[in-house]
């Protein structure tokens, strides 16, 4: 299983029945493939739809129906299309049970940076600041480290996305939960040791007595 699939499968275990969930562009999108059998989750795409499905059959693509990255999608029976003010009223108003976003850095207090690398990459925050400020649960899905450089750090060196800490961080190595006491290491990826995780994490981690392997 590659790293992205592992992360997506573990994040999918955070899904709950009859909830509304937003998936960010990129890796988070993969989570939709691993919804547990029999569970009804409504996925929101912030460009204006609840209840979208995967890419339509060849030749059936509609230029008026895409995800937030501009990729063709389909709509499931019972879908709902809406404008951008409604989209963010749903997000900011606390109607979103969960959002899954990518991350560039998470710090020891659970703060996220994911939209700007000064002097290098100016992406823009898009919907990320509203999502972190407004969703009930914010789950970060990201590689644990970038080419050997830690992304889970004592203090953000990149501009923060919000003042509010995220709820959970899922990486290819670990599941980490920000708490008022600090970052708690909750789970290890299959075959990964606590030592391996600590070696690629510069933020202090609280280690419970047992750190079980992820169930996928």
């Amino acid at each position, binding site marked *: 299983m590659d790293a992205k699939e592992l992360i997506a499968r573990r994040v999918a275990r955070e899904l709950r029945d009859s909830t509304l969930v937003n998936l960010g562009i990129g890796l988070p999108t993969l989570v939709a493939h691993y919804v547990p059998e029999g569970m009804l989750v409504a996925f929101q795409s912030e460009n204006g739809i609840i209840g979208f499905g995967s890419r339509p059959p060849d030749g059936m693509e509609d230029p008026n129906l895409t995800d937030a990255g501009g990729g063709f999608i389909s709509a499931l029976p019972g879908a709902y299309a809406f404008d*951008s003010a409604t989209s963010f009223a749903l997000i900011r108003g606390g109607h979103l049970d969960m959002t899954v976003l990518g991350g560039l850095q998470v710090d020891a207090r659970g703060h996220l940076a994911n939209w700007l690398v000064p002097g290098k990459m100016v992406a823009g925050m898009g919907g990320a600041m509203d999502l972190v400020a407004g969703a009930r649960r914010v789950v970060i899905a990201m590689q644990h480290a970038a080419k050997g450089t830690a992304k889970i750090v004592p203090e953000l060196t990149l501009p923060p996305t919000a003042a509010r800490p995220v709820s959970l961080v899922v990486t290819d190595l670990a599941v980490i939960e920000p708490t008022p006491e600090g970052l708690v290491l909750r789970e290890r990826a299959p075959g990964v040791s606590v030592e391996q995780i600590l070696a690629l994490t510069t933020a202090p981690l609280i280690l419970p007595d047992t750190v079980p392997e992820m169930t996928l």
Partner: protein
Amino acid sequence: MRKAISAEQAAAMVPDGASVMVGGFMGVGSPHRVLAALVARGARGLTVIGNDTSRAGHGIGVLIDAGCVARCIVSHIGLNPVTQQKLIAGEMEVELVPQGTLAERIRAGGAGLGGVLTPTGIGTVVQDGKQVVTIDGRDFLLEKPLRADVALLHCYEADYYANLTYRLTAQNFNPLMAMAADLVIAEPDEVVPIGVIPPDHVRTPGVLVTHLVKRPH
């Protein structure tokens, strides 16, 4: 009843230096024919307000490529390297606004509200220079309304009164912008007789639309 205009006529109504709202999200729901006509007429110095700058050669991206834009107010430029290059080279200004805040600022501009009080952006660079209002112990940023000289919209259907519908995710910022500009130009995919769109399905009433562009042939 309206008389539909050409994309070229529409582009001629957008003066150099104007502030222009452009509907669309990564080019989906953007008025592509009017944008192409703006490039063809060599528009210059525009301030463009939209969700993003799409990608090179597409949507708002064609205006960026052609050097029509002096400044843009958007939430995302991450998928358009040309925007990033021009920003870094100092050829274009970019004001980044959180997407939900951008939507509400445009809505406030159209709805006659004095501003938007949002928790989004608190504790980030978005807060710089802005008033923080504490309401019942919680902090909110005061964000100003946005209006423009012109709004360029895409819609799915228009009837002869210029009542509009939108389609699926091509709706996005279009109905908000229809409320927030002095001149509103809509580019439809289809034109239908009055009465074909039921009152409950109209999303933008014709009274808000100044001009309708001919349907494509």
